[in-house]
């Protein structure tokens, strides 16, 4: 039942992603990406991850707001068409080869609905599930993993996030004095 539902949602996501990449209007493309992200959130909700579903939903809204506010203007010239014909053909052929050989990797995976932790009783996740509540006192096992068992991992990822935020700030800075003078001139004219 859930398999069929998730397959339908995935087919919908594939269609929406293709529309988003092939649309010439940028606003329609960004809204199609929003459709993909919200369907991803529904899939998370179906497979037993409600906290990730809520996070994905809020992040998706923020993504669309940033993309629309920052990159879309009225005076934008629409750019349609791909790169030149020969390069495009070679790239698509290489992508097909990548797809066919990548499919081989999926033969060794466990069946859908049977996770690896049920086959290996001494996996790390089983220890977290069994002892996590006793050792940390946290009912939510996810919080116990993020902040206690794998705290150093969280710390490293937050460092990367810090670098991303301040890197964006440094790139968007208006630094030179000459430009600043012209900016004042612009406001005076206005």
């Amino acid at each position, binding site marked *: 039942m859930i398999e069929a539902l998730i397959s339908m949602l995935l087919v919908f996501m594939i269609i929406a992603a293709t529309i988003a990449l092939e649309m010439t209007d940028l606003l329609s493309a960004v809204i199609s990406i929003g459709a993909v992200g919200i369907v991803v959130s529904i899939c998370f909700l179906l497979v037993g991850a409600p906290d990730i579903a809520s*996070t994905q939903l809020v992040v998706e809204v923020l993504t669309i707001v940033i993309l629309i506010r920052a990159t879309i203007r009225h005076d934008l010239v629409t750019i349609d068409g*791909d790169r030149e014909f020969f390069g495009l053909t070679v790239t698509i052929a290489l992508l097909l080869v990548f797809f066919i050989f990548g499919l081989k990797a999926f033969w060794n995976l466990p069946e*859908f609905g049977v996770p690896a932790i049920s086959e290996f009783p001494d996996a790390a996740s089983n220890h977290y599930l069994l002892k996590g509540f006793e050792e940390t006192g946290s009912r939510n096992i996810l919080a116990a993993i993020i902040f206690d068992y794998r705290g150093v991992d969280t710390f490293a990822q937050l460092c990367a996030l810090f670098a991303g935020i301040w890197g964006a700030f440094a790139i968007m800075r208006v630094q030179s004095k000459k430009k600043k003078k012209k900016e004042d001139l612009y406001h005076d004219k206005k």
Partner: protein
Amino acid sequence: MIYTLCFILFVIGLYGVVCKKNIVKIILGFLIMEYSINLFLILLGWRKQGFVPVVENLAGVENLVAQSVDPLPQAMVLISIILGLGILSLMVSIAIRLYQRYGTFDITEMNKLKN
């Protein structure tokens, strides 16, 4: 079957990154790849009739091992989603700077030393 559909979604995102000319389209391709990888990791840990890894009462801890979904990929993906938003804003700021420098979002016209 479901894993294959996830992989098709990944390949579509890769096509957008490699073949498109518009920078905003390339950013959208990155987003599609990110979604497909997150979804694949979560689907790997799903168990049939499994429930959310939250302890309900003291007797339910033993039950949790037999019936809960895998919590480890969920913990990784939760931070990865937030990190994706930071990376998106970094890419958007670089795109705005390139627009200011060259006056277009088309990457084939950016190889000239204009201005």
